[in-house]
């Protein structure tokens, strides 16, 4: 079963949930964690995985042979991303706008365009104890976040629990991370920002037709704003983790909650059983 952990708002505790769930389940289940927050992958800080392979991921971008090009402009006409243009007697390409769709190469009448790989980042795979771990890392200055995330997703194994640590937000990188998961956990905090972004995230997950549940992190006396919204919209709250300065201190040092406070292990196992029941 694939469970995505997303949030809308950043910094609510997605990685905390993904990491602690993985550590809590590993004794009884086969577990994989996919770090799909490829712009800022943080799960490895808590799990210290041993990577045994790292591959470069690239997208195909056009390369123009000036000898064969007759400057007809067909490539610029078919490219809806304006990633290729004819200027005077030159063809210019803009790799940062290219989606790698192959249109220019396909439709060039003189065969002047071939494709060359442009690196967008890396994917490292390995193990953290017995947790299979996959991490995508976007190359700084690349704009192909969603493409790299799709590549990370393709490395999902057929295990009992595949956990996806998603990026913040609600747009294409999050959609690429969450799409076709069996269940989505949305992590929020009891603040007006947390609620605002939770509402956006719920709309997104529902548009993808994925069952969902909410976790309130840094739960405190203001929880009612989240509870009221969830109650009205029929959304189950599956777990609450109270705000404690000590928990914040563990997080600051990169220490997983269940290692410092093992009483949480059972809670995460119960959470998983609950998700299994709900996603059926």
């Amino acid at each position, binding site marked *: 079963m694939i469970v995505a952990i997303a949030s809308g*708002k950043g910094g609510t505790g997605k990685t905390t949930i993904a990491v602690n769930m993985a550590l809590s389940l590993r004794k009884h289940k086969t577990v994989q964690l996919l770090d799909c927050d490829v712009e800022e992958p*943080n799960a490895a*800080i808590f799990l210290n995985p041993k990577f045994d392979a790292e591959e470069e991921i690239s997208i195909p971008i056009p390369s123009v042979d000036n000898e064969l090009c007759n400057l007809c402009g067909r490539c610029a006409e078919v490219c809806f991303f304006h990633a290729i243009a004819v200027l005077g007697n030159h063809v210019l390409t803009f790799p940062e706008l290219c989606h790698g769709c192959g249109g220019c190469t396909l439709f060039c009448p003189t065969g002047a365009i071939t494709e060359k790989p442009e690196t967008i980042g890396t994917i490292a795979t390995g193990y953290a104890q017995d947790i299979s771990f996959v991490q995508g890392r976007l190359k700084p200055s690349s704009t192909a976040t*969603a493409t790299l995330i799709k590549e990370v997703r393709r490395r999902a194994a057929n295990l009992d629990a595949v956990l996806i640590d998603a990026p913040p937000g609600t747009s294409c990188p999050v*959609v690429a991370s969450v*799409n076709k998961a069996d269940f989505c956990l949305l992590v929020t905090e009891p603040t007006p920002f947390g609620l605002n972004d939770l509402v956006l995230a719920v709309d*997104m997950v529902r*548009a993808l037709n994925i069952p969902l549940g909410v976790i309130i992190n840094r739960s405190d006396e203001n929880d009612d704003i989240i509870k009221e919204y969830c109650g009205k919209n029929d959304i189950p709250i599956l777990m609450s983790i109270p705000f404690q300065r000590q928990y914040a201190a563990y997080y600051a040092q990169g220490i997983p909650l269940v290692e410092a406070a093992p009483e949480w292990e059972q809670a995460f196992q119960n959470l998983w059983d609950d998700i299994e029941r709900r996603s059926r």
Partner: protein
Amino acid sequence: MKEILIISGKGGTGKTSVTSSIAALCENKIMADADVDAADLYLVLQPSIIETHEFYGSKKAIIDSEKCTHCRLCMQACRFDAINNFQVDPILCEGCGVCYHICPRNAVSMKDNLSGHWYISDTPYGTLVHAKLGTAEENSGKLVAEVLRSAKEMAEQQEAPYIIIDGPPGIGCPVISALSDADMVLIVTEPTASSLHDLQRLLELTANFKVDVSVCINKYDLSEEQSRNIEYFCYDQGIPVIGKIPFDKNVINAIAHGIPPVKYGGPAALAIKDIWEIMKNKIDSE
């Protein structure tokens, strides 16, 4: 006119609390929310919307089943696996138009996709340009560019010398879009191992831009040890740490009341005032 961008790498470090405070302190400016997927600045600035604009960020392919002869050319050419059973999955479709160009029967059309809205609003602190990306939409970088283009136009109209921008998290296309014309960047970080890791990656990105970069550490007293690690790291990189904001419940209360933390008072508000003084001196002397 100078663009001041507040970003963080890691999400949830306090960008919006800091941005709204700086916006309240700075006179004569336009404000812009460039975090278009999860725009929160409006919650503290209490805007009343004056203008609403539609944003068409992409196109989506549609197959006319009457004309389609099931030749499969489009399915073979689509690199995004977006065509199944001779129908386009709008979630997977990137709008490249390869299917549209390749179809021998003209059965594919490209439809402009309403991807969101952007707004010009009045607030007690001045004009705010903000946006809302549609549900499960793409092209937030393009919407950021649209918001900033409009903010610049407003700044020219009002002869405002500053644009204060609340940036998106991460290092991807919305951040790159927000950085493209920025004059000064303030990175809001927090004393955690994750935040330091994300700061390193963000600095790798900002190094590609000709922009003045400073760092402030939010909630620095939640881990003075990690806070020192960030200061050492920034010192090594030659990036100034221009302020440290203490953990302060007043910030949470200010946000809960929908007002910028600096207007609410408390130790964090004082620290942010000092940060703004340094930024203002720096940008005015450039």
